[in-house]
Every structure is written in structure tokens, then in C-alpha cells.
């Protein structure tokens, strides 16, 4: 499978990365090189094989569903590019 310029634009949009028009062709070439490389996987017979979901076989750990942390808004907002009164500030979303 290989991608066309429109697909590159769509992927960039899905990934929320602005890509300039003059970069599309170059990116397309790179993505296609990688996709051509991973294409080898289609040779493998995976009939009846379970996909890996856990690297080390172990029981999923669980804990009681209780609050274990919190009350630290200053720490949470410490690195925010914009914050006001214990809220993250983003550009206006609703007119």
C-alpha cells in the first residue's frame, strides 16, 4: 500500500500537525518508504495467531476505585503555558 498527497494531508490533520504544502511530496516519499518496508509482514502466515496484548504474562493488577491523589492544583498547573485561577486557558472554542 502507498499513500497519495491527499492521504498525507489527511494523516497530518488526524495527527494534528500542521504540514506546509511544499512538504507534502517529501513526506509522501518518506512514508511510502516506510510502508514499503513494513509490507513484508504480509508474507507471514498469521492464521489462528493471537495478537500480543501483554508482554509478560501477568494478571491485570487492580486497585480499589478510590481517590489516591489530588488537591495539588498548583503542581498540576505549574508548567501550563496559560493558566488562570486554577484553570488551563485555551483559545476561545465557542463563539
Amino acid at each position, binding site marked *: 500500500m502507498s499513500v497519495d498527497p491527499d492521504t498525507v494531508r489527511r494523516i497530518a490533520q488526524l495527527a494534528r500537525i500542521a504540514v506546509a504544502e511544499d512538504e507534502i511530496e517529501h513526506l509522501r516519499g518518506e512514508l511510502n518508504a516506510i510502508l514499503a518496508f513494513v509490507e513484508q*509482514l504480509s508474507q507471514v502466515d*498469521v492464521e489462528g495467531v493471537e495478537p500480543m496484548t501483554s508482554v509478560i504474562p501477568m494478571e491485570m493488577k487492580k486497585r480499589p476505585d478510590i481517590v489516591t491523589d489530588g488537591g495539588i492544583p498548583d503542581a498540576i498547573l505549574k508548567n*501550563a503555558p496559560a493558566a488562570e485561577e486554577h484553570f488551563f486557558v485555551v483559545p476561545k*472554542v465557542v463563539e
Partner: protein
Amino acid sequence: MTDLTSLTLADARDRLRRREFSAAELAEAHLTAIEKARALNAYVLETPDRARAMAHAADARLAAGDARPLEGLALGVKDMFATKDVRTTACSRILDNFLPTYESTVSAHLWRDGAVMLGKLNNDEFAMGSSNESSFFGPAISPWRRRAANTPLVPGGSSGGSAAAVAAQLCLGATGTDTGGSIRQPAAFTGIVGIKPTYGRCSRWGIVAFASSLDQAGPFARTVRDAAILLTSMAGHDPKDTTSVDLPVPDYEAAVGRSIKGMKIGLPKEYRVEGMATEIEKLWELGAQWLAAAGAEIVTVSLPHTKYALPAYYIVAPAEASSNLARYDGVRYGLRVPGRDVAHMYQNTRAAGFGKEVRRRIMIGTYVLSAGYYDAYYLRAQKVRTLIKRDFEQVFAAGVDAMLAPATPSAAFAVGEKGGRDPVEMYLNDVFTVPVNLAGLPGISVPGGLSADGLPLGLQLIGRPFGEGTLFSLANVIEQAAGRFSPERWW
């Protein structure tokens, strides 16, 4: 007095306890060496004040006869580990001046045991790379050069700063992370020891996430014993990481020097790849002879799905990365680039904040996870991963204790030499290391000799799950036979 920076970590530990010198002197010697080695660009942040304060506290413990396992030992930390109140960026512009309000579990273990932090070490941006060239702070440079040449070489990656710093004696040891070879390949390129433990052995909590099902932390050091000492401290169960394993941590140092007599060592025949350099092949044979001379039984084994490991990795790792890196949106931390609305703010922030390799991987990951392609790419890759893991399990079930293979297909290459046109060219560097991550197994890289150009070459030992102790015993045999290697100081 010998230069304190040339001591092994174990020697420094023992001599500190005998009060032959102080932790403050040890830290100062390293800080001076770091200042003189800025040409290597190994450290992206030096923390001399913190180092001095920690060394001072260590000296008090040493004076009181109350030394902890790593008391006063000067270490560097890869910039992937969150360090409280110390800038942590994963060497990406998008994390800008991020100051964590918490400490990663692995680094916290080192400080709990008395170690001293010298600073943060360079790496490929978000640990994505095999040469440390994708760092926002510029490439780290290897302390090694080819014989009679001064071309700058890469220290490998992604933990290039850690490897360069340990090899150049700018710390006694360092932390690294390994997602596809990021500890073992740079260790091989710089003539030092690096181990990627079993998945789950070290907590991933507080480490900047790249590919969560592959990432593991591990140490770099100049000897096998030093690496064993560091891993003993770094490893351990952490309730904050649900994939962290609740198993006691053995004293790995006790495994160094243990007999390997009667151990069965497999040489995977699929690792004899086409066009493999003769010197790599020779080194591999030599490694097998050393182990055999120490009483191990050498057998040829087969891992039939090996050639599919790299393509599976370049689906799984970017897919997980695209998901993990979705958090960098200019809202909660790091860089923000304004836009006409919130969506454009995200897009502009991510365009400006991510470098080219990271952008490429996020886009590949986004594509393979997108509607209509998930089954063909991601699901298939995870099935292939099951087959790769099964290959290893079958070999171990047949009684093999560990496998021996080269760490890399070549010695270090020059800065700017690879990956310029075709990103896949750089990916091929990880051909011997990636299968180990896919299967979650432990792997250690230990120096085996020098190339014709005078550059270090590494051997890799691959162990059973939680067989790190066996790897240290085997690696020690190789180290005893091969000797140790240090670069000539030119910086």
C-alpha cells in the same frame, strides 16, 4: 592520586567507604571533566549545585558509617527521566522548559540509595533514533574516533549522551531507556556495558513514554559489575506502573564472577544476516569460543521470524508513539504556538515542537491505526510479535539458557552519514536488538573487541525473562576475555 573519574563505580564505592577521598571530591572531579568535555554535547543540562549538595549529604552518611548502596556515586540521567524541579525535555522542543513536580521511580531509587546527580544526558528526540542526531539540542558526539582520523562519529542512540558520558568518564554510570536497542546499540558503539532488563523489571513511571509495550529503563556502565550494581538499585516493583512486576530484585552483583559451566548458549542462525561484516562475524565466533572455554555448551538455534521483527517494530512502536505523544497539545505543559482557534493552536504547536523523525513516526502511527488500516497493519504486527516471542520461548524450552549475537551490524558511523535520504537505512541498525524488545526479554551489550578502524564492537547476550543474573555472569566471562576499552582523550 589517580584521576577519580577513571575509577570503576565499584572501586569508587569501596574507596569512598574507606574514606580515601570524599564524595565531594568525586563529584568535583566529574564536574570539571564535564566542563572540559562540552564538545561531546553529552550533557544537555549540568546540575553542579545539586551534585554538590547531594555529595555533601553523602559525605555526612559516609562519615557516620551509614552508607547506602550507591552512597556518593556520581551518575548522569538520560533526559527521558522526569527529575523533580530539574528541566526534563526528552530533548524535544515541545517540552520546552518542563519542570517536573515529581521524580521518576527509577531515578528516585538511585537517590534513595545515595547516588549523586551530575546532570541530564542527551538523547534522540523522544528516544526516537539510533544515532542521537535527532535531539533538539544537537547531536551528542562519540568520544571515539577512527584510527588516524578526526571525523566526528555518533555515539549511537537513542541514549547517545549516556553512552558518550560513561565512555568519556563524565560519570561513573548513567541511566538509559531501550525501546528497540537504545541502550545496547550505544553501549556497543562506545565500548561500554549496557543492559535492557526484562519488560516490567524497572518501573516506567515518570519516564517520558515512547512505546509503552517496549520501553524499559536500564543502566550504562564501564564494567559488567558496575552495571549489575546499578540495576540492583533501579529495578523493583512499583504500584504506579501496572506493568511493573512484583518479583524480588536479586543482588545482581553476586552473579558477576559466578561460573557459567554447563550453561547452554544458543547462536541464532537467522542473525547471520546477508552482507554481515566479516569482523562482526569473527567477533561473534570469538565470543562463542570464550564462553565455551569457560565451560558453556554452544548450540545453533533457530528464530525463524527474526526477519519480520524490524517491520513489526516499525508498526507497533510508531502506533504507540502516536498515541502517547497526543498529550503534547500546548495546553498543560511545554510549548504553545498560537493559532486562530484551538485546533490550529494544536497543529501549530505540534508542527513547531516536534522534529522531523518524531513527526514522521507520529504520522506513520496515525496511519496504521486509522480506520480501515488497523487490521492490515497494527493487528497483523501484533500477531507477528506473538510469533517472534514464541520463537524465543521454544528455544528456551529446549534448555537454552541464553543466546549470543552481535549487538550491531557495524561499528559506529559518522555524524550525518545515515538516514538522510531513506529513514529505513537508519532503522536497519536495530536489526539485532529489536526482536528482544518485541519479546520483552533482557539483553546485555558487552564490548568484545575493536574494529579494523579501531572502534568498539559489542556482543549481545539475550536471556530468559528475568534472567538478568545469568546475563551478568556470561557478560563477565566475555569482559574477562576481551578486556576493557577506552577512547583516547581528544576533547
